[in-house]
């Protein structure tokens, strides 16, 4: 046993105290027919060998590509202080602060997290963390149903496809989700179709609880958030903004355009991509919705001596108190990631965060020009911050060929949205403060070469795949 302290003598002493001869006696209450005869798993692996094998396994992932992939998860530079502080066992080996007298560190850090995110969002109430952006968005949509006592939510088609899929799963048990289409062409192409939204909201038989739109949206485009919010409110619905936190250094915050609830993915705030998590579900609301917000809340109070202190509060919303009447079933959350985000924000400060956002936008402008010169123009014409779609014929094959040249050319949009003909021939690319001009030049050059050398359109896509495979084997 690699981490157990018990010697055979310890075990004997405990057995003797219990007056039994064998530990098997403690399992005698398992019906004989249902007893398992052990586990068919490999032998224990000593740390020395296990660490070697894990290093090798990690090395099989290709992570040294020049990456232009965002699509909801963004590469950022993280100050070394963040992980150094997170690695203190006092943070990561504690649990939910049920005993506030010996958990003031965690409690104050959550209170500060709530305060930092409230400031970014311009909203008053911030829940102490949810699983990820998708689950937070689903919880936000459920809040709108509880508050309005209506059962239908509208979500923009330009919200991340995983978030929409999650919303459908969470709403699978009796609530309705309808999608708001995006404008097909013109200057507003790729953003919420306001006329369609108005029509969807006008259905008196099926009143809408909430309208969900993302800023920036999945294609990186900026949405007319104030107009969407006004339409939602005019129909008696709440407005949910799905936001990216770094962008809030420079973009109008949800509270400024009338959002009642904001949800989003906190990963860009100092959290590594890690192939999907653990991330940080951001969830914030106006004061009016404080009793509907799910998840933990920490409040400032005093102790018996009047000393300032922090404690979990408004717990009557939570599952361990209210059981089947709770606002959500959430228990374990993403507290350590909320701490990471707080340390990140504290370390880089407001100016650093603004620099991250603006540098990303500057690099994205350079990327746009370079890709356009290489023959890949933007798919949409509306404004964006640091992510945008480009038109690339045979995008999947081009994307694969570029991997062989050390470039991760963003996301093949057709892989994420297979049923959307508008996205059939496009890549979604992004730049952040870590993107270098040299990477942009290499990407543009390789793309240009690939597009020029592209086989005639008549050749089916699979042929390209085989060529890549053959080239690799050689």
């Amino acid at each position, binding site marked *: 046993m690699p981490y157990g*302290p018990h010697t055979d003598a*310890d*075990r004997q002493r*405990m057995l003797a*105290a219990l007056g039994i001869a064998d530990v098997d006696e*403690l399992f005698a209450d398992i019906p004989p027919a*249902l007893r398992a005869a*052990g*586990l068919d*798993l490999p032998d224990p692996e000593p740390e020395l060998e*296990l660490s070697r094998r*894990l290093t090798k*396994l*990690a090395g*099989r*992932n290709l992570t040294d590509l020049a990456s232009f*992939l965002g699509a909801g998860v963004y590469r950022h530079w993280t100050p070394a202080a963040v992980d150094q*502080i997170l*690695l*203190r*066992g006092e*943070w990561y080996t*504690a*649990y939910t602060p049920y005993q*506030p*007298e010996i958990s003031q560190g*965690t409690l104050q850090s*959550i209170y500060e997290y709530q305060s930092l995110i409230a*400031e970014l969002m311009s909203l008053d109430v911030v829940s102490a963390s949810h*699983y*990820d952006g998708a689950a937070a968005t689903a919880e936000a949509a459920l809040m709108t149903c509880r508050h309005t006592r209506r059962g239908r939510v509208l979500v923009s088609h330009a919200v991340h496809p995983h978030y929409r899929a999650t919303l459908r*799963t969470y709403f*699978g048990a009796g609530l309705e989700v309808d999608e708001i289409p995006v404008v097909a062409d013109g200057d507003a192409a790729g953003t919420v179709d306001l006329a369609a939204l108005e029509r969807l909201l006008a259905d008196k038989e099926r009143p809408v609880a909430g309208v969900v739109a993302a800023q920036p949206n999945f294609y990186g485009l900026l949405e007319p958030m104030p107009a969407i919010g006004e339409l939602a409110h005019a129909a008696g619905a709440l407005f949910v903004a799905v936001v990216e936190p770094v962008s809030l250094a420079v*973009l109008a*915050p949800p509270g400024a355009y009338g959002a009642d609830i904001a949800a989003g993915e906190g990963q860009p705030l100092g959290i590594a*991509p*890690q*192939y*999907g*998590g653990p991330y940080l579900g951001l969830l914030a609301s106006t004061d009016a919705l404080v009793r509907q917000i799910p998840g933990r809340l*920490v409040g*400032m109070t005093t102790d018996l001596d009047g000393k*300032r*202190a922090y404690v979990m*509060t*408004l717990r009557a919303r939570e*599952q361990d108190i209210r059981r*089947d009447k*709770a606002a959500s*079933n*959430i228990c374990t959350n993403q*507290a350590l990631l909320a701490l990471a985000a707080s340390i990140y924000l*504290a370390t880089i400060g*407001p*100016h650093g965060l*603004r620099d991250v956002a603006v540098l990303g936008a*500057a690099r994205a402008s350079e990327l746009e020009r370079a890709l356009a010169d290489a023959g890949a123009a933007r798919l949409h014409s509306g*404004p964006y911050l640091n992510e945008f779609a480009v038109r690339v014929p045979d995008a999947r094959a081009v994307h*694969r060929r570029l991997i062989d040249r050390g470039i991760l050319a963003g996301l093949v949009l057709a892989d994420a949205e297979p049923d959307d003909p508008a996205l059939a021939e496009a890549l979604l690319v992004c730049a952040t*403060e870590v993107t270098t001009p040299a990477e942009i030049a290499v990407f543009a050059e390789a793309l240009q070469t690939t597009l020029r050398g592209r086989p005639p359109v008549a050749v089916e896509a699979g042929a390209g795949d085989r060529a890549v495979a053959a080239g690799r084997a050689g």
Partner: protein
Amino acid sequence: MGVVGERLQPTLFERSRPGRGDGKIPHAPKDALDRIPAAARRAAGPALPELNEPEVVRHYVNLSQLNYAIDTGFYPLGSCTMKFNPKLNEWAARLPGFASLHPMAPDEAAQGTLQLLWELERALAEIGGLRAVTLQPAAGAQGELTGILMIRAYHRSRGETERTEVLVPDSSHGTNPATATMAGFRTITVPSARDGGVDVEAFRAALGPRTAAVMITNPSTLGLFEKRIGELLEAVHEAGALAYMDGANLNAILGRFKPGAAGFDVMHFNVHKTFSTPHGGGGPGAGPVGVGETLLPFLPTPRVIREQDGTFRLERPAERPTSIGRLRSFVGNTGVLVRAYAYISAHGGSGLRQVSDDAVLAANYLKHLVAAAYEIPYDRPCKHEFVASASALRKRTGVRTLDIAKRLIDYGFHPPTIYFPLIVDEAMLIEPTETESTETLDAFAAALVAIAGEAESNPDLVRGAPHNAPVRRLDEATAARQPNLRWRPMTGAQMPCPD
């Protein structure tokens, strides 16, 4: 020196001074945002605190020292399995190949992680006696939702839409009924039998054509193995319902009892409990869900698939139309799952069984010691945890379980879970885990016994505890009546900064 540090800290906001903390990120060109319409831009920047790095480090190091943690002491929080979190696992999750991999990277760039996830799924399936596992759920509660939504999809696929009820015992975790509500079911709570086990007759009476599922924690939240689990599962299936196993207490039965093999249709694993991934001050966890044959078609998407040629890939959108869909973005809390994989590999099959043997032995040993001063309401061999009660002590002295818990802090221990399960008066749910030495167990029991003595001789000492912590008991009533949930400069005026 108290059990934790004593230096309370002002907030980040009070430490802020304009102009501090610049210089980590290169300045961006001034005109970079000119292409963004003014209406979409933020009028004034967010008022985040401005600090330099040494201040940030001191702030967080001092705050961290106000926390009690497994790395600092014994943390017998029942139902939470606060075992040692191996350092190797922290190192492994931070390997650049794992940590910097983008979740939408093409499959060919993710072969190492996909292989790890695939192998972990198979290991968990073996541990649970199940057919297949999804690693997607982010925590146990999301695992429960996954399982119950699959059960819903199963009944619908058979046209049995009238199954609208989920049965849970009254000793269940709060997440069980909360999950049933989220999945659109009505919860029926079934009282426990007098011996603390499930009352099979009461369940039989409640089961019927409206029952969709029964959710059982085994061992139960009382730390007792459900001796009549075979009968119960039979009754559930006879009624056409499915059986959900809450795997929170799996640490007691590794290699001893496989829920799937025994007849459960679905269960979740809490990797932050059984497989030692850190609790992180509240999270993250991961809540993989395993299923038997019945629910296989309904597993969330995407699954990890191993191709004929030995390569791995993720299922594509809409590849398996029977799936209940997604519970979250991407594949799951992969960084947590890397740690669980390392833990399972380090132990192997024999080591995991030893984990349970030692956890159960330690719990029974501690129960034996604690029985010297407290009631043990269900006095038969427990599994990895047990319930003690201060009910008689309270009647005699007025000292409550809450007071005892707070007094334990003065003795240097984290209190156990208290007032849960709800069916035991003045309950303390104590879970020592397998990574605590007998010296620690002896010292903890001695503290509990000493506190029982203090309750008789000097009850005010216990009622006023903790005396040795950075703050005393908190004014929770005001916190709830006038919630102060974010910093504003005014707050500082009302409650002066501790510096």
